[in-house]
Structures are given as C-alpha cells and as structure tokens.
C-alpha cells in the first residue's frame, strides 16, 4: 500500500510537470566562447535546454562538442559568455558546483570502481554520515531504479556487470545526487543495438519525468533521429543550426555537420581471393579473470580478403587477436597460419611467419614510448637481417643502427609520418602519427596476414582516411586482413565478409550488404539461423 501511494504521488508530479514541460528553460547558455592556443574551440554558442526535452548535440571530432560538454559540466570555464540555470546566472568552477545545482554527467568511459559494489559506487564521494547506512542507500537506489526503469542489483560488483548495466549505474549515480539535467557523453558507443533500445526507453522516461537530457553524439545519425526532440549541430566551434528532430532528416543533419553533401557509400575494390592464410578452428580461451571469453570460435581468412569481426567492445575481440598472435594460449582449438599449426607458439615465431598486428591500444601495447621512432619501427624484427650484423669483436649479434635509421627514414616518408627525425622518442608524436608508425611497421614487411584492431579509433578524418586507404592497398597486395573493429560503419564499409562476435561466440558470417537490423540482432546475441 505504501509503495502504491508513492507511485500515485509520483504520477501526479509527472502530470504536473508535463503541463509545464514546454515552458521551463532549465539551462540556457549565451555567447559561450572558449579559446585554446591556435584554435577557437567554442565560438559564441547560444543554446537553450528545456526540462522534459531530449536535446542532442551533434558534431564530428574536433567540432567543439567535448569543450562545450566540459563547460556545461563545470570542468572548464568559458572565456566569454554566461550560463543560466533556472533563470539565475551561475558560475561553474568545478563539476561539484554543477552537480550541486543538478547538472549531472554520464561519461563515455565509465567512472566506476570495478572491485566495489554498485551501491558503493553510487554514494562514492557524497558527504554522508561517517558510517555508511547500507540499507538506506540500497532503498533509495531501488526507488530510483523503479521510477526510471533502470534495472540494477545494488549489491552486484561492478566487474560482474554488462556494459549496459554499468551505464545504468552511472545514470543512477547522477539521479541519486538529484540531477535534473543529464549530459550524456557518447552514450551509445559501447552498447549493443538491444542495449541502445533499452537506453532510449530510459531516456524517454527521464524526459517524461521532467529531466533535460543532453546527449553528445558524434555520428550516429540514426540514433539522433530516434532519441532526440531537438538537435543542435556544431561545426568548427560554431552552432550551425538547431532544429526540431521531426522537421529534419539524416541527410540534412550530415550536411550541416560536414558542410557539404555527404556520400554514405565508400568505394570498394573487389579482389580475387586466394588461398586460406589463416584458419581459426574451434578456439576457446579464458580471460585474465578466468572466465570463458572465447567459445568454440571458427572462421577462415583468405589472401586478398578483408574479414571484419563486428561486435561491441568486450565480447572477446581482444582475446581473439591475442590468441592468433600468440600472446594468449587457447584452452582448446587450433590456429593455423599459412597451413602450419601455430597454436600456442610464441609471438616471435608468429611474427617470423609474416603476421602483422595493429593493437587496439597503440600507446600501451603497440609502441615503447621512450624508445625512438626508428627503434619502434624495427621493434618487431630487430633481431632479423638486416638490422643485426656480426660484431667486429665479441659474440652473438649486434644492432646495425645505420641500417635501422635508413629503414626508418624510408618508412617515415612513405607513410607521411610527421616527426622532426627518426631519433626522437616516439612518445612525442601525435595520435595520428603514432598510428602511422605502427601501420608502417606492420606493413613494412608485407605481411601475409594482418590483424587490425580498431585501427582508426580516436583519429581525425585525415588520418582515418589514410589508414583505411592503406588497408585497402594492402588487401590489393594479397594480404589477408582480419579487421576487428567496434566501429560498425568501418567494418561495413571495408570488409568483404563480416563475422559477428557476441560473448565469445561467432553468431554468423554474412555479407556487408546484409540489413543492419539483422546484424544488430546478431550483435545482441541472436544466432544467424534464428534472425528474423
């Protein structure tokens, strides 16, 4: 009875809010400008965010979205302009100021402590009584969870949760602190299509309850259309336009984003496929935590073809590439490269067979930042001719730096790597150039098999185009390429075939021309045979 009364009251509140929904401009920004050395990140931005509305901010990387988001959230202060919250002028000196007012942020990369439980993460940092009243906290969390349909178990440990559940914890964190404005940073980038649908339901519910929701989205136009009531497009730091979503379409939005008519297709080169260069047969493996992360994975890759592995991050892609490159021993199954069974062999031997690898995390796993550009370019084959020679005295092998530098300089020019010279530590280079170094290194020995993981993540348009072009070129040279990418569009536009991975299993292998809904279903766990 008690519970029913609560629901009754909240529904009444809801009805009241709906009637004033269109009136309340909860957050207004005027003339917001922010400059950084050499660039105007935000240029005189004027926007209004209303309670009960989902107002999406759309723009490419570098359009000024992140800066604007950080200003709204109090992380940085604008050089010019004012922020008004509920009609009153406010100055946000820190995220704590923002949260006190009721402006909450849900980050793209979750800010959660994996070893702690959900309820602990929710109250982290809050000024509560000295002793944690677990029962009270749990109760409040469950109330919020019920009201906004955010299904979560308050006692679960974060590391046990799925990505969608983790996001819900982040949202609850903000709602627990009384947020009335919710900023969402790339909310769908880590979710399966099913989880995206669930998120939309949650967002619409929050809007109904009178919250203002502000998703910042890079280029998922379809989602912007579905989720928002209002859309603002940013380009080069300026507001290009603000429109009601129902009055616009994808083409118009894309044009506003990029400034010219955009072709959604990418020209592709069809090549003759050769022999099988890589075979993965019934491979199973355990993750670092001891969970079964790969379950009976099988596929084959031919010379001159690009096989895309599509899937949301965390479904075993990283472990799959580690098994193929020899960094992880599978618990079952075989990996056969160029006809030879290489299961369980060391990375060194697999490299020697001609397998190239572009890892996901270029700074951590792909490069040694303290070593020079040249040394990184020969990292994989430094022990081979011609980089070693017999020393004048002593025994064993010695490095021939003359040859190494010569080799490096050629690669620097071929791959347009911007660096003062080949002897500076590679850590001085920018992101796009780091990736070029890795690409140059891996392609320099004309690999027969290339495994590329998220090759264009976080790169600007220019670098992305260059890398994709080089990958296509390599395909033409007859390399079999395994493209493991979380960017579904990238996989769709570059691959000849696509295998969808979900929870360590291959759901199906299809043509990239397949309907995206079907691919989405497979990414969410439906096997090909049972897709509608």
């Amino acid at each position, binding site marked *: 009875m008690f519970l029913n009364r609560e629901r009754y009251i909240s529904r009444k509140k809801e009805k009241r809010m709906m009637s004033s929904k269109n009136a309340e401009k909860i957050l207004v920004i005027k003339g917001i400008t922010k400059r950084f050395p050499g660039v105007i990140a935000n240029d005189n931005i004027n926007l209004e965010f209303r309670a009960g509305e989902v107002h999406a901010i759309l723009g490419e990387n570098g359009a000024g979205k992140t800066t604007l988001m950080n200003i709204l959230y109090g992380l940085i202060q604008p050089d010019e302009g004012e922020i008004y919250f509920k009609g009153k002028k406010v100055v946000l000196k820190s995220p704590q100021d923002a949260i006190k007012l009721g402006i909450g942020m849900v980050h793209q990369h979750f800010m959660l402590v994996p070893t702690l439980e959900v309820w602990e993460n929710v109250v982290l940092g809050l000024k509560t009584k000295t002793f944690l009243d677990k029962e009270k906290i749990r109760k409040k969390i469950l109330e919020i969870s019920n009201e906004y349909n955010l299904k979560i178990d308050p006692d679960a440990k974060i590391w046990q949760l799925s990505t969608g559940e983790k996001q819900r914890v982040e949202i609850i964190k903000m709602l627990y602190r009384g947020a009335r404005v919710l900023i969402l940073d790339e909310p769908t980038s880590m979710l399966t299509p099913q989880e995206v649908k669930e998120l939309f339901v949650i967002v619409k519910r929050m809007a109904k309850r009178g919250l203002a929701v502000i998703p910042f989205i890079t280029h998922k136009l379809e989602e912007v259309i579905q989720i928002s009531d209002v859309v603002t497009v940013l380009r080069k730091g300026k507001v290009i336009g603000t429109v009601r979503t129902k009055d616009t379409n994808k083409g118009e939005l894309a044009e506003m984003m990029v400034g010219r008519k955009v072709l959604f297709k990418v020209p592709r080169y069809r090549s003759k496929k050769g022999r099988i260069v890589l075979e993965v047969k019934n491979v199973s493996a355990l993750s670092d935590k001891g969970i079964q992360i790969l379950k009976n994975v099988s596929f084959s890759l031919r010379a001159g073809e690009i096989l895309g592995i599509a899937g949301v991050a965390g479904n075993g892609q990283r472990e799959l590439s580690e098994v193929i490159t020899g960094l992880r021993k599978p618990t079952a199954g075989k990996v056969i490269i160029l006809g030879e069974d290489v299961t369980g062999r060391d990375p060194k031997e697999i490299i020697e067979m001609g397998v190239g690898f572009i890892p996901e995390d270029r700074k951590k796993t792909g*490069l040694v930042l303290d070593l020079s550009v040249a040394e990184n370019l020969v990292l994989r084959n430094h022990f081979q001719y011609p980089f070693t020679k017999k020393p004048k005295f002593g025994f064993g092998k010695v490095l021939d730096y003359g040859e190494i530098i010569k080799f490096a300089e050629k690669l620097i020019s071929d791959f347009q790597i911007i660096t003062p010279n080949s002897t500076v530590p590679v850590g001085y280079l920018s992101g796009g150039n780091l990736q070029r170094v890795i690409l140059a290194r891996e392609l320099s020995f004309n690999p027969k098999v290339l495994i590329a993981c998220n090759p264009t993540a976080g790169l600007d348009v220019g670098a992305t185009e260059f890398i994709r072009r080089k990958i296509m070129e390599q395909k033409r040279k007859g390399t079999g390429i395994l493209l493991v990418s979380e960017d579904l569009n990238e996989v769709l536009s570059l691959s000849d075939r696509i295998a969808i991975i979900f929870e360590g299993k291959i759901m199906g292998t299809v043509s990239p021309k397949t309907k995206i809904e079907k691919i989405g279903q497979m990414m969410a766990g439906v096997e090909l045979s049972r897709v509608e």
Partner: protein
Amino acid sequence: MMFQKKTRGILLSLIFIFITFFGIFLCLLPICQSKNLSIVEIFNYFLYSTITSPSGLAQTLMKTTPLLITSLGLCIAFKARVWNIGAEGQIAFGVIASLGTCLFLPLPGIIKIILAIVFSLLLGAAWGGVAGYLKSRWSVPEIPITLMQNFVALALMDFLIAGPWLSSQPGYAHTDPLPLDARLPYLAYPLNSSFLLGIILVPIVFWIMKRSVFGFQLKATGYNPIAANYGGINVKKIIVMSMFVSGGICALAGTSLVLGEFFFGVKGVTGNYGFYAIVSTLIARLDPKLTPFTSFFVALVLVGTNALTLKGIPGPFVHLSVGILFIGAVLIFLLEKVIESGGEKNV
C-alpha cells in the same frame, strides 16, 4: 635531442657531486664545532685521505673496484626495471666460490684464479636467477625477495667461514689466508690488479647494453614490457636473463675482494658494497660509461668519511653520508623531472 640528453646527464651528475659534498660538509660543521675541530682541516684531511695522497688515492681506487663491478652488474638488471637488491648476497656467493676454489683445490695458481672467476659467475648467476625466475613466472616482487636472499647468502658465507672453513689460527672467525699463487698481483701496493678487472668490465657491459640485441631487449622490456612482448621479445626470458647476468657480474665483486684485497675470508668482507653500488648505478643513470666515475665518487665518500674517524668524527658518519648520497640521488631525479617538464611544477 639525443646529444642534449648526454650532456644533461653529465651535468646532473656534476650537480649531484656538488650537492652531496655540500650536504656532507654541512653536516660536519656542527660536529666540528662541538668537538672544536677546524672545518678547513677536516676538509683537507678528507681530500688527503682520498685523493691528494698516493696512499689515499690507492685506497679509494681499491674501494672503487667492488663498487664499480657491482654497479655494472646492477645497470643491467635496473635497465630492465628489475630491481636487484640482492647484490650483497651475490657478492657473498662470489666470496664463497673464490674461497672454496682457492683454499681447497690443489691446482696451479693461475688455474685457481680462472676457476674462481668462473664459479663466481655461475653461483652469482644462479642465485640471482632464482629471483628472476620467481618474478617472471609468478610476478613475485624482486625487491623483498632479493633482499631476503642477501640474508640467506650472508648467513651461508658466515657459517662456512666460522665453521667448516675456519682457520686453525687463533683470533676472530676467519679462514686460512689464500696461498700466494692464488692472489692477484699488486699494481703498486696497495693498489691491486683487481682494479683492472673492474675497468675491463666497463666496455664489456657497455657493449652488452648498447650494442647487442640482448641490450635492446633489456631496454624495451624496462620501458614497456607489454609492447615489447607484442614486438616478439620474450619478456619473461629477458627478466630471468637480466638477473642471471646481473647476479654473475655482481658476484665478481666478491671475487675481486677475496683475490685482490683481503686474501682470506672473514665476516663482513662483503662490506655493504651491494647496497652502496645502488646509488652509484642510479647516479650514473644506468649508463655503464658513467659508472667508473660515480663509483669512484662513492668510494671517495666512503674512504674519506671513514678516515675522518681518526680525526674525531664519529664512525657512523659513514652511514649518514651514504644516506645523504641516496637522498642526493633522489634530488637529482627530481631536478631532472623539473627540467624536463620545462620548469613547471606538477600538481
């Protein structure tokens, strides 16, 4: 860029020398005042006992030898970020191997010397390799393990010296003196040719670290073992190998002590060189070329502060000076960091 780094390294080492000298004499001032000693006289005596007199210089060079050898050994391990604190124990094994070979094997002198060197290398390598293996296989942290190994190795050495190898001569626990043919010849008394052993090792270790493939792999493993692994380097093997090589070289310091300085075994022969060499290595920024100079400087401080006891400065001032050396090393790293970040303070 690379050139700048080299001169910067030397500059920092010079600043270190200056700071520690300053620190040491700053601490001496109040002591001198309380004991009515003249600081100028103390300073002069310090220099006299270490470099301005031939006997002093010889003493300093003798002390440099084990420091230099150990320091070189540590460079190799430290480069791979394997913190070998077990040098003292590895030196002990060098002592054990040398004593065992030279006292008890009925072979001609030169053969015994060669065998002493070989066995020292082997025992030191094996002892160090244990820690390397534990680290690579089970990620057991090497600092406490190698440190504990010191105690075990020293206990073994003490046991042998006071037990089975005890001399029949009266006096505190010590072994028989080495036969004359098993001793390294003097260059110019009291400077022994064991000093040359250290000098010879410098280009060898330099070659290992800067020219060989192994050295490159050490470097890569130390900076970023994950990327090194992806690059085909067998990181686990490198960790074990680094401790092998390091342990073996450090053991040679023990050999030099027995064959070139003491000529018999006694408790305390290892003289804490295993620890003092750490600061020498850190200041040399793990560069084998600089170790002769940094080792010489550390030896200078040790000999000098020790000699000052004759002038009334209390004995443990040596320990304090070593402590100042270590703090100086940390300050130099701090200085380097501040310079690198362009003078801005990190918040």
